[in-house]
């Protein structure tokens, strides 16, 4: 127990106290020490999905700078919010001078999808003695990329090592991208015009492909197509609350279509 907390504390000092009550419970799986699993998690962060994520954070840095967000704000946002869609919504809200309640509501709505993701991941990581507080802390690392990687790879990690593995994976992803955002922000002005344009194109393309891939049911694809069209439409009609309205209408229509299809199939 103590070593688990020590390994976790290495990523970020959250200042928790752990008591070594059940020292012997996890040592039974002694094939590889805990630090090895932590490092394996770190290594998983530098796989292909991890590199794609880095490229889209490069795009985010360019976007944030363009919107007038300071480098400290952009880096802080990367570490605390840690969900690109929500961060892009937040940057948009800051750039358009939206009021705090409107910004909060839009970000809240964009972050809802994190809940079912965590709900699916938490049982995978929960081994017999896993403390609830560890899961709450690790939940902060959940975003599309780390989630996809974890859902795919945790099966091959011994149950007692999964939280450690995920701490390595999530911690490495967050740390790397905070550095990436800071570094790219610094050089963004010196880049040639075509490169800047290409960087700004990275974020929408990353979302477009990852969102389509992560949609669980057909309603998700319908909602996506509706949102793509409704977003720009409401940007012209209702510029202050365009995203909210597009999300509420697009989502409800997609859901309604799914219900009707199910009813037709049942009849």
């Amino acid at each position, binding site marked *: 127990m103590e070593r688990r907390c020590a390994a976790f504390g290495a990523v970020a000092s959250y200042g928790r106290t752990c008591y070594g009550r059940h020292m012997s419970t996890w040592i039974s799986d002694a094939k590889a020490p805990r630090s090895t699993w932590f490092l394996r998690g770190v290594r998983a962060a530098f796989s*292909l999905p991890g590199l*794609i994520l880095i*490229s889209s954070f490069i795009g985010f840095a360019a*976007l944030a*700078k363009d*919107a007038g967000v300071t480098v400290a704000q952009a880096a802080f*946002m990367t570490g605390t*919010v840690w969900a690109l869609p929500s961060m*892009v919504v*937040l940057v948009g809200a*800051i750039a358009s001078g939206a009021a*705090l309640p409107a910004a909060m509501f839009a*970000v*809240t*709505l*964009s*972050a*809802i*999808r*994190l*809940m*079912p993701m*965590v*709900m699916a*991941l*938490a049982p995978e990581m929960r081994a017999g003695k896993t403390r609830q507080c560890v899961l*709450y802390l690790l*939940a*902060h690392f*959940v975003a599309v990329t780390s989630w996809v990687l974890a859902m795919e790879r945790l099966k091959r990690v011994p149950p007692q090592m999964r939280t450690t593995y995920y701490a390595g994976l999530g911690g490495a992803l967050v740390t790397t991208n905070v550095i990436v955002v800071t570094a790219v922000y610094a050089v963004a002005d010196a880049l040639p*015009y*075509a490169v*800047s344009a*290409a960087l*700004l194109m990275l974020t929408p*393309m*990353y*979302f*477009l*492909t990852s*969102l*389509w*891939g992560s949609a*669980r049911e057909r309603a998700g694809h319908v*909602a*996506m197509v*509706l*949102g793509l069209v409704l*977003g*720009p439409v409401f*940007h012209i009609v209702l510029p202050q609350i*365009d*995203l909210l309205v*597009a*999300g*509420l209408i*697009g*989502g*409800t229509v997609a*859901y309604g279509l799914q219900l009707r299809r199910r009813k037709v199939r049942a009849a």
Partner: protein
Amino acid sequence: MFILVAGFATTDIWRFLGVYLGGKLSEDSDLLVLVRTMATALVAAVIGNLVVFPGGALAHTSLGLRIAAAALGFVSYLVSGKRMVVGIATAEFLLLAGLYLNF
């Protein structure tokens, strides 16, 4: 402060709720499906706006070029068996090629 309240609190509340509810609520419950479709539509709206109304250097490119690059990139993503790298690379290549040819 704005970021902390509007960004951090509003995203992590869902993550915490996810841990709390993990296992209690079914993944396929109707409420969750509705929530997911709304969230998906909202993020898709963000994508649409980023392509149609971009900022910075991208704003100086033509709308047709951006939509064509994104659409063809997406098609190549689907055709290649949902490989994100292919989709992203295709869109970027088309965008740069279009810029080079002055579209």
